[in-house]
């Protein structure tokens, strides 16, 4: 039982303010459009309007074998339209959103149609001022990152004011003061927490005259972010604990580029922040991100190291998952694109603590060599290893209040993921290109719960062969054959993809994902999905029909559970 914690509660004050803001935004856009139309002959400044639309509609059929359910309305639809208008130093934008009702797997509380984002901005040589919804990132994002990822259902836009000042060449100062988007119910709904932040970035080569001719380029920066949420005490076990209303996170960073060598690093700290992610412990958080790279023509290598300890940071201490995250922890595992590797065992960043290293390298075998042949050959290699962090649990009240002590930045004993993959890409002729990718994964399903069928480490080998063949000037085919071998979980899988492109408008594809190795014969299902797409200019219409497997969909280490589905899909996108 917890008391004194501020759960989200809608306030009549918020819609009142938002209605006013919406009206003001609409009025500003309209006035600018009229003004622009009437003044085009008298001023060289031209206004520009850009935008994009997306509609995703799904129809559902029941399918007890794959566990596909049908909502009461039998269909779902997510749609949005964004508009941005620029006139000289001024710009403004607005985004309409519609969830009628949200497609399955999205936050079910997203519903209705209304304005999900609105903003206005003015900038000159010294200042850039933005009011309304703001997307911003400080450094690598470990102190602050607000972003919109419609495919994941994430929008943690800041809603307030941001000022960016460039007082001197090479110096950029940012200040932000805002609430944060939490929900959507025919209108934008903000959480109660308040986010305040400042960031400074200095490009030393511009600031220090003696460094200007230097080939080594150095950038340093620092950020500070504080959230405010009211709260008095929390009951935890038998203790009553004081809640911090103001929780701060701060970071320092440096980036150096010298010829082919680059280095960047950021270290972040967070003060006591009891929250639902860390089970309300008062331990400080910290994080370290290091990158070192070497790149020349035809060869590049990057080493990354990451340490994260208790770094979930939200503007509402009671929220979890996608709700009101202030920061973002970059992923060092590769984001895979092939069907089996990307959907069966995708790794999600563990905000409460992980320690990892990765290596990424590519090499281009030159043309007219034994291996390279006429067109050369590309090799890419990636390895990532992530474990828990090295900690010692505390005892008694200290355990209740602080949880554990961190011993070092080193790996803990629990393996989270191992991901090795190598890709060969070889063009054999003007019309034929082959790609082969091999993956070896060790994946802890207790840490990233992608399956309910197996708890522990899955050892998997994946082979992917892709062929790209140009049949003639207008037609091309792309085919993939994929196989996953494992003794754990649902055992072996295969995927086949065939895609035909008829330039300039049409694409036809069919995908079959087949769990042929499942011990349960009834679960050896073909997840067959066919798509027809039509593209013209900046617009695309795609219709698909078939089955989709229950699983996890990830972008950048952030993952969303996707339920099984069986039915028709319509996807329309357009930009202008």
């Amino acid at each position: 039982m917890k008391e004194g914690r501020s759960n989200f509660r809608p306030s009549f004050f918020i819609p009142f303010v938002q209605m006013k803001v919406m009206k003001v935004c609409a009025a500003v856009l309209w006035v600018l459009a009229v003004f622009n139309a009437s003044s085009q002959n008298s001023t060289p400044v031209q206004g520009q309007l850009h935008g994009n639309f997306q509609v995703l509609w799904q129809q559902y059929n029941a399918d007890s074998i794959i566990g596909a359910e049908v909502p009461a309305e039998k269909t779902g639809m997510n749609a949005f339209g964004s508009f941005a208008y620029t006139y000289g130093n001024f710009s403004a934008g607005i985004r309409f959103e519609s969830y009628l009702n949200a497609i399955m797997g999205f936050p079910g509380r997203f519903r209705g149609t209304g304005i999900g984002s609105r903003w206005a901005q003015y900038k000159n040589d010294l200042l850039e001022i933005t009011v309304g919804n703001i997307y911003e990132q400080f450094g690598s994002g470990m102190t602050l990152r607000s972003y919109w990822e419609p495919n994941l259902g994430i929008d943690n836009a800041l809603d307030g004011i941001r000022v960016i000042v460039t007082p001197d060449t090479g110096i950029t100062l940012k200040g932000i003061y805002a609430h944060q988007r939490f929900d959507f119910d025919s209108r934008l709904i903000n959480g109660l927490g308040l986010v305040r932040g400042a960031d400074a970035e200095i490009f030393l080569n511009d600031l220090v005259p003696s460094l200007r001719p230097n080939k080594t380029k150095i950038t340093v920066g620092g950020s500070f972010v504080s959230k405010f949420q009211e709260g008095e005490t929390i009951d935890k076990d038998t203790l009553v604990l004081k809640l911090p209303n103001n929780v701060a996170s701060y970071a320092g960073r440096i980036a150096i580029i010298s010829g082919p060598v680059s280095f960047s690093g950021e270290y972040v700290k967070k003060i006591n922040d009891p929250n639902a992610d860390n089970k309300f412990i008062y331990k400080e958080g910290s994080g370290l991100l290091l990158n070192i790279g070497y790149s020349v023509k035809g060869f590049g290598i990057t080493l990354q190291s990451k340490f994260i300890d208790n770094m979930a940071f939200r503007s509402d201490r009671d929220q979890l998952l996608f709700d009101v995250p202030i920061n973002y922890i970059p992923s060092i595992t590769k984001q895979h694109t092939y069907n089996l590797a990307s959907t069966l065992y995708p790794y999600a960043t563990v905000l409460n603590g992980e320690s990892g290293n990765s290596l990424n390298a590519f090499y281009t075998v030159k043309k007219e060599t034994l291996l390279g042949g006429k067109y050369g050959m590309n090799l890419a290699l990636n390895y990532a290893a992530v474990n828990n962090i090295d900690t010692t649990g505390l005892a008694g009240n200290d355990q209740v209040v602080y949880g554990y002590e961190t011993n070092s930045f080193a790996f803990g004993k629990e393996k989270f993921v191992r991901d090795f993959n190598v890709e060969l890409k070889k063009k054999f002729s003007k019309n034929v290109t082959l790609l082969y990718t091999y993956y070896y994964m060790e994946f802890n399903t207790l840490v990233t719960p992608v399956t309910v069928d197996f708890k522990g480490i899955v050892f998997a080998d994946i082979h992917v062969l892709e062929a790209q063949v140009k049949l003639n000037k207008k037609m091309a085919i792309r085919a993939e054959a994929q196989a996953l071998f494992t003794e754990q979980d649902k055992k072996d899988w295969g995927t086949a993809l065939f895609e035909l492109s008829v330039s300039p408008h049409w694409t036809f594809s069919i995908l079959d994902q087949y769990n042929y190795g499942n011990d349960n014969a009834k679960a050896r299902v073909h997840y067959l999905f066919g798509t027809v797409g039509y593209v013209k200019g900046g617009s695309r219409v795609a219709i698909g029909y078939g089955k989709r497997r229950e699983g996890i969909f990830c972008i950048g280490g952030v993952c969303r559970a996707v339920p099984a589905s069986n039915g028709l899909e319509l996807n329309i996108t357009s930009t202008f």
Partner: protein
Amino acid sequence: MKKIFLLTIVLVVFFTSCDVIDEPICPPLGVGFREDLYGPPPEFDPQATVLTNVLLEDFTGQQCGNCPPANILARDLDTLFGERLSIVTIHAGSLAATGPDYPNDYTTPEGDFYWSQLAFQAYPEGRINRKGGPSNFFTTPAWEDEITESLAVPGVLDLQLAAEYVAENQHLNVHVYSRFTEAMPDAFRLVVLVIESKIVDHQLWYGHIPPEVPDYVHYHMLRGSVTGASGEIVFTNPDADATLVSSYSMDWNAAWIAENCAVVAFIFNESTGAIVTCTDLELGE
């Protein structure tokens, strides 16, 4: 000037936006006797004879069909041993859950904590002066003998209690007098609990026809605490005659009926968990 102004803003934001909490643990809930309202705490006279009293903690649940016989046994033992025995009936665990026929939740954070201390969680079972440590428990056939044995332990702590419910201020005032008669090693914690009797509500009882009893009378039910489940340290390595009066004013919970409530106080050894002695006082007296 412009840079200084900006820097000042950043520094102001920085220094006003951090609540570093060095001591997150709040003092126990009941701390702070309202002397401004009620005057000084009462004075206690040392008892000439100091005996060891016994606390029986009876773990139960409204959906535990085997528990009513244990509740009845506890009340029989209360009659048998009189003032030397205090009883706290703790609703905790899965059989204390609410359900369609059991709409009221009688679990408490304190009870949940005590339940979590048990080495084996089952119903009915009881702790007797936490003999053998807080994880140790006794089944009903052993209760009488264990209580008798514990009552025979020579007394070393004079524990007295004064309590009053002040209706106009909705306060429970509690004063606990404690005096060691011998020097003792270790630290000792004082716990003050509130229990309530004569609560009429549903109870599953396999020995009753029908087993769903809608008007079962619950006695000695743990309702809350003044000090928290773990209490507060009141003595560390006390000398003989080490004496302390601990006074509390606690906000009353309106769901409790004062005349049916009692206060139970006990002191336990922090190292072993064993209770040194206990006492109770009915507010309706």
